[in-house]
């Protein structure tokens, strides 16, 4: 069998929406890398200037441009895998192996990506592919929204999903509710963006429903790139139809006719699972035209794989990436609700947000609202990893004390050491330590300590860990992932990394602190997107909790 020709590959995608990423992957998969010749063919076929195409390819971590590159092993150098000596594994794997940013397997380190496979293990000889573990049931038997049915056997198939209440919310929305009532239900529930930004979901849907311009688009942001976050992977692997149903509800509410799932490259197994689920839903008439017999309810979902860039989780970058442009964040305003995909009204929602919608529609806004502690609405999935006895995903009531999660739910420290610090929002929230570990898991509480809950990744560091090293690892990540668009982030993340590594900058504490604080201040105030605004929380919190460790390092 001969390989598919350049022209056939391009023609199979050229008239599809958002064709660049799938075309790049088609060539990358066929040849195991992107050759100069391939890039020239794609440039001509899609009428993209060759310099733009060449440099856009360079933006993505995982598009290999040297022969055999795709199959070369990439070893996670993220914060959790580094606690498990990922550097040693990288050395063991020898020539050709390179480091990569966190691929979201912090619950079972160390992760290695090789071709289309993610392998886990602590040494080269014991690497094996392991499916995502199911989230453990919570100890209190608390009602759940996101994980409410995820442990039902067969849930990932259409048949299993329907047996356990799947697509009943969509039926209810189509048969018993107007789109406006659907939006109202979501608004009343208090559901807010679970990717970290916390924007009220109902308000977003309403804005898109009312915005002029067609076709409208629903984008599921499944580019879970934050180190220490792996909740969306668990959701998609075990409950893919919930993602589809959530998107269909958003489409019904807003009048959108096209949908995209933007899935990070590092989740190849999830890609296959979603593809199968999409085909099942299409075959059952749950996607396509006149869905569930509703006249004019048309909605299609296109699965698009990213190619390795943390910034593509930022919605402006994500939309540029989908459109085949250089994935810099967009200037705001205008916002995606009016000027999103192809400058048309677009909902961009995180996976967790979307899968929360079906239970809310079925069980009502009041039910969801009441899941949180006190006045707080709903739940949040927390990815817990690092030096903790039971790493994994937990759906917690908003407002659960952090201590309860760490000790009662997750079994406390993994090793003989006491807990020293945790990160918040993966790495983006910086560290919490000391008395601040008494926070409850909700934005008001965590923000009052200078951090934020964000996407809900929490990495635990015990007393045996070097916090300056942890901070340097985190800042290196932000520097590597800074897109290069805005000055404060591009230069600031680099300078902070150098100062944490001690490779340049003042050698005494007062001067060191003055520079680091000035850089942090300007990054927080003037960066163009959340990456640059959040990165200095690492140094800020290090200075707050561990000044003596820094001083010791500087001597």
């Amino acid at each position, binding site marked *: 069998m001969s390989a598919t020709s350049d022209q056939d590959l391009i023609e199979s995608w050229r008239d599809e929406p958002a064709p660049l990423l799938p075309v790049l992957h088609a060539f990358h998969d066929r040849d195991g890398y992107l050759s*100069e010749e391939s890039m020239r063919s794609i440039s001509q076929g899609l009428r993209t*200037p*060759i*310099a*733009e195409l*060449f*440099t*856009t390819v*360079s*933006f993505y971590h995982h598009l290999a441009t040297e022969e055999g590159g795709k199959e070369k092993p990439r070893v996670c150098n993220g914060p959790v895998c580094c606690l498990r000596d990922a550097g040693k594994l990288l050395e063991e794997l020898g020539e050709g192996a390179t480091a990569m940013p966190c691929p979201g397997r912090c619950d079972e380190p160390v992760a290695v990506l090789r071709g289309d496979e993610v392998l886990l293990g602590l040494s080269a000889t014991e690497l094996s592919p392991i499916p995502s573990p199911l989230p453990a049931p919570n100890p209190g038997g608390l009602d759940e929204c996101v994980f409410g049915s995820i442990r039902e056997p067969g849930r990932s198939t259409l048949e299993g999903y329907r047996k356990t209440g799947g697509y009943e919310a969509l039926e209810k929305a189509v048969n018993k509710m107007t789109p406006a009532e659907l939006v109202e239900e979501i608004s009343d529930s208090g559901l807010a963006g679970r990717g970290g930004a916390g924007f009220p979901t109902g308000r977003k849907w309403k804005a898109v429903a009312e915005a002029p311009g067609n076709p409208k688009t629903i984008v599921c942001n499944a580019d879970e790139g934050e180190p220490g976050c792996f909740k969306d992977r668990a959701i998609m692997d075990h409950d893919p139809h919930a993602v589809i149903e959530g998107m269909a509800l958003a489409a019904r509410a807003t009048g959108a006719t096209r949908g995209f799932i933007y899935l990070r490259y590092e989740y190849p197994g999830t890609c296959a699972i979603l593809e199968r689920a999409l085909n099942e839903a299409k075959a059952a008439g749950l996607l396509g035209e006149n869905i569930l017999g509703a006249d004019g309810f048309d909605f299609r979902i296109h699965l698009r794989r990213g190619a390795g*860039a943390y*910034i593509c989780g930022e919605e402006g970058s994500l939309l540029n990436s989908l459109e085949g442009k*250089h994935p810099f964040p967009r*200037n705001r*305003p205008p916002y995606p609700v009016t000027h999103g995909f192809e400058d048309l009204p677009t909902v961009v929602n995180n996976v967790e947000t979307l899968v929360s919608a079906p239970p809310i529609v079925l069980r009502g806004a009041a039910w969801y609202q009441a899941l949180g502690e006190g006045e707080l609405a709903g739940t949040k999935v927390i990815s817990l990893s690092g030096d903790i006895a039971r790493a994994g995903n937990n759906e917690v009531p908003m407002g659960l004390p952090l201590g309860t999660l760490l000790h009662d739910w997750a079994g406390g420290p993994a090793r003989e050491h006491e807990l020293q610090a945790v990160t918040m929002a993966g790495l983006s929230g910086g560290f919490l330590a000391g008395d601040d570990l008494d926070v409850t898991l909700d934005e008001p509480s965590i923000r009052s300590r200078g951090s934020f809950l964000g996407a809900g990744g929490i990495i635990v560091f015990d007393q045996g860990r070097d916090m300056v090293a942890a901070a340097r690892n985190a800042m290196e990540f932000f*520097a*590597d*992932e*800074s*897109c*290069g*668009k*805005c*000055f*404060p982030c*591009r*230069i*600031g*993340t*680099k*300078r902070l990394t*150098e100062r944490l590594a001690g*490779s*340049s*900058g003042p050698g005494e504490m007062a001067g060191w602190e003055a*520079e680091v604080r*000035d*850089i942090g*201040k*300007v990054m*927080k*105030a*003037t*960066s*163009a997107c959340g990456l640059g*605004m959040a990165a200095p929380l690492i140094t800020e919190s290090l200075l707050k909790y561990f000044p003596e460790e820094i001083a010791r390092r500087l001597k």
Partner: protein
Amino acid sequence: MIEKDDSRTMILDGVEVSFTPGETIYEVASRSPGEIPTLCYDKRLDPFGGCRLCVVEVEGVRNPVASCTTPASEGMEVRTSTEAIDEHRRILLELVASENRQIDVDPLRGYASQELTELVDRYEARTGRFEGARSGSSRTDDDNPFILRDYDLCISCYRCVRVCAEEEGDHAINVLNRGFETRISTEFDGSLKDSDCTFCGQCVQTCPTGALGDRKAMRYEGEPGNIEKTRPICPYCGVGCSIDVMTRDDRIIGVQPAMDGPANLGALCIKGQFAYDFVQHPDRLSTPLIRGEDGELHEATWDEALDRAAAGFKEALEKHGAESVYGVASGRAPNEAAYTMQKFIRAGFGTNQIDNCSRA
């Protein structure tokens, strides 16, 4: 006819000013005294929001906003220069200064080449703080005669990339890699002459640091004497681009586009930008020459030369008829001259054999 009044008002540094919907804060502020600093801004290009120097405070908004990308809105209260804003600007400029080999460059490098130097001095940011790795990597191997690619001085504002795409439509360069590792690159990181570059030089003239330099003008770097600028129309074609011819001691040392030239707004092509050596070339004809009986060329007056040409045409007409004449108008001439030329050939000689070199 009644014109719809579209104007709105906002408060800029305590003063009520009017604006048209769609204008950015920066555009509104640029009509008032007090200059908001920028490095990634070029008014011909889509606002980019990269350098963040133009941040301003907006009442009721927590973080400063980039004035170049934020639309003005009714009743908005904006402060363009406060202690906090000016400190952000100074720190940003200190950071930018820390990534470059040098801040000061010769103005002959390009039209905008002094922008970084001027801002660093205005905000007293020549402090040497934030030292560390330098960004960019000069392409000393790109030996084209026109454009110096001294990327050690690049600050990643991407004005070159954007002017190449938005103004010239060449898309010859773009941003390679990301973060601190970003570099300006052609396709497959090659030289400009192996790319889609047409050497129009617009990237050179918009570069705010001299990272891109006008190699021809730079031949005269460091020579004594003042540079004088004269504003003629480019002689090459009928578009009528305004240029600023730079001379020192009556010698042309370079050309810069006129940013306010009505026909070009700062745009030029390779010829207008770089092809001026003919003016002072020793081989250039500065007086008519007539070939004498001896077979040699002899200097003549214009009257003598025109008489000789007219006689030649007349002789050809008499001996061989109108079909022996063929007119080719110069592509450097404007429409009016081309019209006169065809009239001259058709009415004067009685033939339709008239053409233009641009068609060839």
